[in-house]
């Protein structure tokens, strides 16, 4: 593939430990992860001139600049829709450096979503839940659907019914990701694999769809990514990882998790289908043609529907695709070799991006062989990256 001076490249990743109690502020986690990423890249913190995070990150750009000693910040943007928008940060960073509005863009996400607040817990009446006011979650609250698991289950139950999928089928994803995490020392569930019986014996969160082991973890931690242009990347410490393409989509009446209103049939991942179409055009590579699949796993059914939406298999065939071993480390489309959100921890999509970069560099703990390109997918957004 051709290399151009204005190609957007990922040159640094940083990740704090993932825990259930970080013992420090979210701002400190953001600052530590940012410094790790900048040191990884070999870029002085004062050279950062762009910053990107989520609308719902609790940290402030000014606060982070104050820690890092950023001198002249030219560009900031925050992306909507929580973790579903995680890969949108890569799209925005790419757009910023390619257009020249910023030279060194720092992306961060840092959260104490286990020790400081509980991200997965029901939210009391009168409060707009995590995710903010951009979606229609408030329509679910007085009916007792007050947590991400219950919102997710209403869509997934329709999928189960239509395609004859059981909760034990979803358990295949849990077992696989815990197996990957078991050999990743950075994972919360390092050396703790599970069996399908463990999955089936875990308690119901939202029956008949989600058990405890279908859910991602609540974790404390921070992750940061540094993006710049190829002309600047040549002198840096790491082999640059090129962003071959990155896209974001929002379709009529779609929402990030209470996604009930877009069509009569909720079993179709239309957002992911659109991401796939656009990625094929811009990156000239389809997600299924990459060697690693870093796909957002807040809940196991999301892997099923995204595999179909991102074109790994046809609609209704995810169960067979997974059962066929395709997502194993030696399979056709290894899924989240770090263990994903279910096994490593849940830094809201960002620890899937950092693992994707390590896989592209060839430096991951559970390294997939002969990686040329990696797919980063989070429902409404997707990117294809690789060393050139």
């Amino acid at each position: 593939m051709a290399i151009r001076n204005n190609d957007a490249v990922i040159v640094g990743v940083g990740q704090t430990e993932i825990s259930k109690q970080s013992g420090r502020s979210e701002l400190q986690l953001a600052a530590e992860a940012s410094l790790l990423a900048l040191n990884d890249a070999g870029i002085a913190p004062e050279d950062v001139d762009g910053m990107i995070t989520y609308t719902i990150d609790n940290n402030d750009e000014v606060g982070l600049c104050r820690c890092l000693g950023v001198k002249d910040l030219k560009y900031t943007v925050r992306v909507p829709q929580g973790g579903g928008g995680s890969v949108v940060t890569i799209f925005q960073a790419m757009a910023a450096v390619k257009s020249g509005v910023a030279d060194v863009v720092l992306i961060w996400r840092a959260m104490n979503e286990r020790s400081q607040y509980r991200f997965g817990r029901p939210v009391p009446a009168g409060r707009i839940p995590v995710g903010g006011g951009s979606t229609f979650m408030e329509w679910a609250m007085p009916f007792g659907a007050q947590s991400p698991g219950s919102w997710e289950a209403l869509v997934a139950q329709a999928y189960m019914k239509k395609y004859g999928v059981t909760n034990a089928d979803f358990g295949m994803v849990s077992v696989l990701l815990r197996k990957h995490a078991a050999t990743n020392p950075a994972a919360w569930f390092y050396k703790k694999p599970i069996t399908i019986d463990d999955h089936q014996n875990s308690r119901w969160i939202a029956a008949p769809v989600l058990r405890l082991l279908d859910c991602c973890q609540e974790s404390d931690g921070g992750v940061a990514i540094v993006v710049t242009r190829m002309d600047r990347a040549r002198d840096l410490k790491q082999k640059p990882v090129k962003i071959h393409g990155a896209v974001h989509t929002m379709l009529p009446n779609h929402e990030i998790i209470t996604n009930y209103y877009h069509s009569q049939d909720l079993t179709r991942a239309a957002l992911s289908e659109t991401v796939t179409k656009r990625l094929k055009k811009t990156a000239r590579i389809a997600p299924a043609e990459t060697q690693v699949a870093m796909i957002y796993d807040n809940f196991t059914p999301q892997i099923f529907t995204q595999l179909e939406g991102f074109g790994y298999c046809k609609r209704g065939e995810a169960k067979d695709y997974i059962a066929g071993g395709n997502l194993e480390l030696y399979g056709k489309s290894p899924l989240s070799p770090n263990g994903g959100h279910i096994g490593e921890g849940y830094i809201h999509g960002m620890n899937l991006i950092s693992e994707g970069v390590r896989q592209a560099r060839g430096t991951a703990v559970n390294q997939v062989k002969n990686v040329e390109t990696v797919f980063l997918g989070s429902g409404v957004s997707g990117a294809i990256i690789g060393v050139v």
Partner: protein
Amino acid sequence: MADDASLRGGVATRPDPIVTVDSSAFWAGADRGELIIQQCGDCTTFYHPPRPMCPKCHTTAMRPVKANGRGTIYSYCIPIHPPSFGFAAPPIVALIDLEEGVRIVSNVVGIEYEKVTNGLKVEVEFEPTEGGHQVPVFRVTTKKKAR
């Protein structure tokens, strides 16, 4: 039974709705015992959740109208853990496809969880909230009442 899930000693414990300017007609209707959906004043398309502008003809003449209250269960789940605020027992949460062609989140009451299935016909009724408001919930249509 599921319809007792939000009552404790006969006192309503169900959370009050989160009312915004654009959703106020729906919740005011529920307080009166009416299921309100939104209809475009120009092109007559039905909408839910409500919005201040019709995405087809861009009028702001959106009007609240009373739905006939009949629908079908599209999907359901039972949020078991952690317990939902305001519910002594796990409620049956469902997506209900109304006959007018819009979908709403609600509860199915008066039926055991094991008997709920996709496609059951339901009819609206109302349950109180802790602050003295009401929300629409649905009960499976009995043959006698079916039309």
